[in-house]
């Protein structure tokens, strides 16, 4: 292969680096290279965000893999003369020797996602080539079920669906239940808004889940597995089905697996996309053909679950960790993470963040690292306001929590929760009252209606929040809102109602001033709740052209030609058309 360019300069094109540079770095370097006569020798390439936004602008010299950070105009000459011409690294611009391309000091560590994006999910051979089904073979032929369960307990793996219950302990309890039939259930009913971890794993690496379910079956003494997956995931279902067929053809599912007397089969059941069916008792009822309603625990599914038989329910991501733990050992897994939360967690980053994506970080990584380094910071360089973790059941974390190491217990202590791993980032333009309203709208839709606090309580909470956002709230409403939230939380039957007021309580705890502003000052500080806004016409800019008046759909603008116009706020519906049409910037909102 002939290589034309001796070196490449990769310039981070992330908006954060772009903002930090205040000049067009690429153009500037190109001009400089030409000055030095290097433009035929060295190429400047635009790169996607390096995830090191806090120290931008960033640049990598490739193939040397030297990374320069916080570059200014005056540094360019040094880089060209020292590095490109003389081959000496400009040490003062290299930060912590962190090298992105070569793979050291990465913030992300992939265990559950180890194969996602590397293997063809529809080819079992790809999975087998990457040590696939080794863990199952090892468990069946060299360990007793108790030994495997003990390894999972020792690894410290906790349920990734949100509960955080120790997986090994759950397996142990189910294995001790005596019954002629037991079941392994994989919970793939991912319903949190903005969460797509389980879908990605099933679409990218379905065999790891199949293998782990068989291992679980071996441990608890079950020969039947069921994947409960939402019907809204057609591609995940298709790939899972192909994977199941392939595993069956190879004899990795079926009878006498690996020549032992262990038999295991897996079926798929579809969920109709009800959020509450992610709760394990509701999920089991849905599989039985009953209404997807939760029932009180105990009895726990480990004792009496699907068709009254002991059932072990684990989440997709939990299963995806199992083969890695068996292959690499419990001690290895336990060495990653924090004291009480071991291993890694997959997060789906969404909201006002530059690098929306799927990430996997060791437990104990701080929110700041996730949002600013991996996530690339806030869109348009705006100010970070809060991050909602744990979906509609979680809470919001604010700037004071940015340096909090993320694990199950720290998030709970901070008033939020791990949940399944959705992370929605909000910036200064987001109104926290409107955010709480959005989540309540979701819970009202998704409440199964079985218990009164959740069915009616959430409805009333949502009504109160709507009243606040529409500008009719009173200070008394705030007390009522808080009291009812506590009641719904304390008296609901299942996790859905017990956690649904969390977005209200946590935003009230962190952003009480915003609630106060809505009911006392009759203002929405972030400007998102449009009912508080009024449109005005600027006396100086208005030339009296009548365009706004002609375009107003409700004829709320009055005025004569070449004279100042006035908006009648009684009639105005705040549609904003006048502002859009005015060519003289004469209309403003206050």
């Amino acid at each position: 292969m002939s290589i034309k360019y001796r070196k490449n300069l990769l310039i981070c094109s992330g908006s954060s680096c772009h903002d930090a540079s205040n000049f067009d770095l690429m153009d500037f370097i190109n001009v400089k290279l030409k000055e030095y006569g290097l433009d035929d020798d060295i190429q400047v390439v635009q790169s996607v965000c390096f995830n090191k936004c806090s120290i931008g602008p960033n640049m990598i010299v490739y193939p040397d893999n030297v990374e320069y950070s916080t570059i200014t105009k005056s540094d360019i000459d040094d880089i060209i003369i020292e590095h490109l011409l003389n081959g000496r690294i400009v040490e003062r611009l290299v930060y912590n020797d962190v090298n992105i391309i070569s793979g050291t000091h990465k913030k992300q560590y992939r265990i559950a996602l180890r194969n996602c994006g590397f293997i063809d999910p529809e080819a079992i051979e790809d999975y087998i080539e990457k040590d696939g089904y080794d863990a199952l073979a090892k468990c069946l032929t060299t360990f007793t079920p108790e030994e495997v369960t003990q390894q999972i307990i020792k690894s410290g793996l906790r349920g990734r669906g949100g509960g955080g219950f120790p997986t090994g302990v759950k397996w142990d309890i189910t294995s001790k239940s005596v019954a002629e039939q037991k079941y392994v259930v994989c919970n793939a009913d991912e319903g949190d808004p903005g969460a797509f971890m389980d879908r990605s794993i099933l679409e990218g690496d379905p065999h790891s889940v199949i293998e782990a379910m068989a291992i679980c079956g071996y441990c608890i003494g079950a020969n039947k597995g069921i994947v409960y997956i939402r019907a809204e995931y057609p591609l995940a279902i298709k790939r899972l089905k192909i994977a199941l067929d392939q595993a069956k053809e190879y004899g990795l599912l079926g009878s006498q697996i690996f020549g032992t007397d262990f038999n295991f089969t897996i079926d798929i059941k579809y969920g109709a996309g009800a959020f509450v069916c992610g709760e394990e008792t509701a999920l089991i009822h849905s599989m039985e053909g009953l209404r997807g309603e939760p029932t009180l625990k105990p009895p726990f599914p480990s004792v009496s679950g699907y068709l009254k038989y002991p059932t072990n329910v684990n989440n997709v991501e939990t299963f995806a960790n199992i083969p890695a733990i068996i292959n690499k050992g419990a001690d290895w897994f336990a060495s990653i993470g924090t004291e009480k939360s071991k291993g890694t967690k997959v997060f789906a980053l969404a909201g006002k963040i530059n690098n929306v994506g799927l990430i996997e970080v060791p437990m104990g990584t701080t929110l700041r690292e996730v949002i600013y380094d991996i996530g690339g910071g806030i869109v348009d360089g705006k100010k970070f306001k809060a991050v909602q973790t744990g979906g509609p059941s979680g809470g919001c974390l604010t700037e004071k929590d940015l340096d909090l190491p993320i694990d199950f217990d720290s998030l709970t202590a901070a008033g939020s929760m791990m949940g399944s791993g959705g992370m929605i980032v909000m910036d200064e333009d987001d109104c926290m009252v409107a955010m709480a309203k959005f989540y309540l709208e979701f819970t009202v839709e998704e409440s199964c209606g079985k218990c009164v606090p959740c069915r009616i309580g959430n409805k009333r909470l949502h009504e109160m929040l709507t009243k606040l956002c529409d500008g009719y709230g009173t200070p008394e409403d705030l007390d009522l809102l808080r009291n009812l939230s506590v009641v719904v939380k304390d008296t609901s039957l299942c996790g859905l109602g017990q956690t649904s007021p969390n977005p209200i309580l946590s935003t009230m705890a962190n952003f009480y001033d915003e609630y106060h502003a809505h009911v006392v000052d009759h203002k929405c500080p972030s400007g998102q709740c449009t009912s508080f806004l009024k449109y005005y016409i600027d006396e100086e800019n208005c030339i009296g052209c009548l365009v706004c008046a002609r375009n107003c759909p409700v004829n709320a603008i009055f005025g004569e030609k070449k004279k100042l116009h006035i908006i009648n706020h009684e009639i105005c519906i705040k549609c904003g058309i006048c502002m859009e049409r005015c060519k003289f910037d004469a209309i403003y909102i206050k």
Partner: protein
Amino acid sequence: MGTIKSVADLKNLRSSIQEANQKAIVENNNEKLIEINVAMATCGIASGAKEIMEFLIQELPKRNIVAKIKKTGCMGYCYAEPTLEITIPNEKPMVFGYVDIKRADEIIEKFIKKGELVDGVIPINYELAT
């Protein structure tokens, strides 16, 4: 395809897969194949990965490039879909984001043929548990 009845069967299957890969290398004049992974989870497909995949399957043979094109799951770069990971033999894998037909063409002509980088490189930002 034979069924796996023992641990030895699994190991044999793995070595036969590796042998098949080796054979492909021998058939390619003893040179390793260029590997191209196309991220094709729901999100990748929605942003156009399928078209890119079809383009590569059609165009590479026309331009006399032997490559192993593979669809994979999500690579995690949702913000830069569609994404490709290309491994030139004996080089580190390189990931490209925001790939459209024009950029895919550029990647073939410049990166695959000449080893020149093109815009849209995504630095790999994770470590793998392998």
